[in-house]
């Protein structure tokens, strides 16, 4: 209850406190000139049935590159972004101190996982108490863009979250 109150208060106070926080949509994290994704593959293509066994016997399927293009202009910008928290590390009292913020909840196993430019790797000193994974949160802080220097280097968005509060439906 008190957390809810705090969240509401924060949400109310936010527009007055910092005027230059940019509210982002997940699509803003993809550069406008990014190459279009490859055309979708038919899910149930019967003509491929004969190849199914051959595919099973083959090596592990290649994954799409996790180093997707990022929007470099966003580096250092104070932003807020809504998303779902995937906990990576917790403090002793169970507060999530390191997490990945993703645009949708649950690993939908029908499609590939979100590409690297749709994930924000966030850390928070205080941490956030996550009761249910399907609760969306706002996170706010300066965005850090890490450039991909090679195929396997760290590429993507990082954030030292300053504020984390519940996302409420208006």
């Amino acid at each position, binding site marked *: 209850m008190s957390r809810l109150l705090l969240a509401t208060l924060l949400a109310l106070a936010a527009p007055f406190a910092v005027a230059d926080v940019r509210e982002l949509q997940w699509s803003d994290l993809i550069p406008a000139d990014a190459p279009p994704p490859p055309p979708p593959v038919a899910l149930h293509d019967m003509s491929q049935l004969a190849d199914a066994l051959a595919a099973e016997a083959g090596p*592990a399927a290649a*994954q799409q590159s996790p180093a997707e293009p990022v929007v470099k202009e966003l580096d250092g910008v104070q932003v807020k972004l809504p998303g779902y928290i*995937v906990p*990576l590390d917790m403090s*002793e009292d169970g507060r999530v101190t390191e997490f990945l913020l993703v645009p949708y909840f649950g690993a939908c196993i029908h499609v590939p996982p979100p590409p690297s430019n749709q994930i924000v790797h966030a850390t928070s000193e205080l941490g956030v108490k996550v009761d249910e994974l399907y609760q969306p949160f706002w996170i706010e802080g300066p965005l850090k863009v890490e450039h991909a220097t090679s195929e*396997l280097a760290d590429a993507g968005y990082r954030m030292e979250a300053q504020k984390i509060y519940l996302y409420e439906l208006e």
Partner: protein
Amino acid sequence: MYLLRLALASLNNRRFTALLTVFAIALSVCLLLAVERVRTEARASFASTISGTDLIVGARSGSVNLLLYSVFRIGNATNNIRWESFEHFAEHPRVSWAIPISLGDSHHGYRVMGTSSAYFDHYRYGRKQPLQLAQGRPFAEDPFEVVLGAEVAEALKYTLDDQLVLAHGVATVSLVKHDDKPFRVVGILKRTGTPVDRTLHINLAGMEALHIDWQNGMPARGAARIDAEQARQLDLQPKQITAFMLGLNSKIATFTLQREINGYRGEPLLAILPGVALQELWSLMGTAEQALFVVSLFVVLTGLIGMLTAILTSLNERRREMAILRSVGARPWHIAGLLVVEAFSLALAGALFGLLLLYIAIAVAQGPLQSHYGLYLPLALPSAYEWSLLAGILLAGLLMGCVPAWRAYRQSLADGLSIRL
């Protein structure tokens, strides 16, 4: 102030019922706080057991199951996985480090874990704290060296260079022991407050050597027996392990690698994010915790209602007391105040006594709880939440006091001095 003195004097006059009431409230308060404390401490100990590990990989089962057996040594694995699979992902370009884990044996009820030296370098607990040795060194190349968790060493009184025999299976009392291959203690870890304290660590070659002549599911007999010295000469390259932990170069790649492992064609594998699995475990336990909490709330309510009953039944007996108070100039609201103060002091005494009981219980149970369940309950001051629970109980006591107060108020208006007893 005189109201309080009068209330206490009146209670003193009925000290037996008053004490019983206080005791009932104290027991219920103690129960409520104990449930709360065990809940928070259990969560804290779970949360601080693993840190900095990005993925845990094992045979396909459930995420909670994999987390429980690989990290908390609760339950058993459904299946082993091949060494080739471990090698494949340990050498994966996105992987920074990998720790193999092989489970299944025990020593006096403590689990034995086969692993590699990467475990001492990369395993983290709490707030990314590394494992530290209190004495000795990590195990080296020799297969028959063991590093003990702090609690194993303490409970079984082992020191460096002691020899010990591991048992097959995970029972506390073992009938089948690997007594032809004793292990030497080379290191003892510092206390971590996690399941690591209750684990014996050997290297994978040692795990392999233990089972090298167990081809038929039982120890070999006669000439087929391979003793420790012979085992050292053999190829002890493990063929299978139970699970492994991975640290990645970039956390952003977690999902990609998780998907790659889950879709690995070599054999069916399951990769989990420990944080997510822990969250799932908590939402599972949440229901039971809620139920316990509600039950203990009701016990507190019962205690308070007991107090209410005691005060209400005493009202009739105390008409003369009230009448005398009225005759010496007490107003009806004085009488009401007296009863509210009485109820409040009973609740307060109950809460304080309950707190005392809780601390006595923790002091007594601390040792056994730690050694049997790995749950460490600190003798800490009540948390903010516990204070608020106590305040809630006092408030409820105060409100309960208003009921007899109201009745006494009405009676003292109506009865005055006219009552005949």
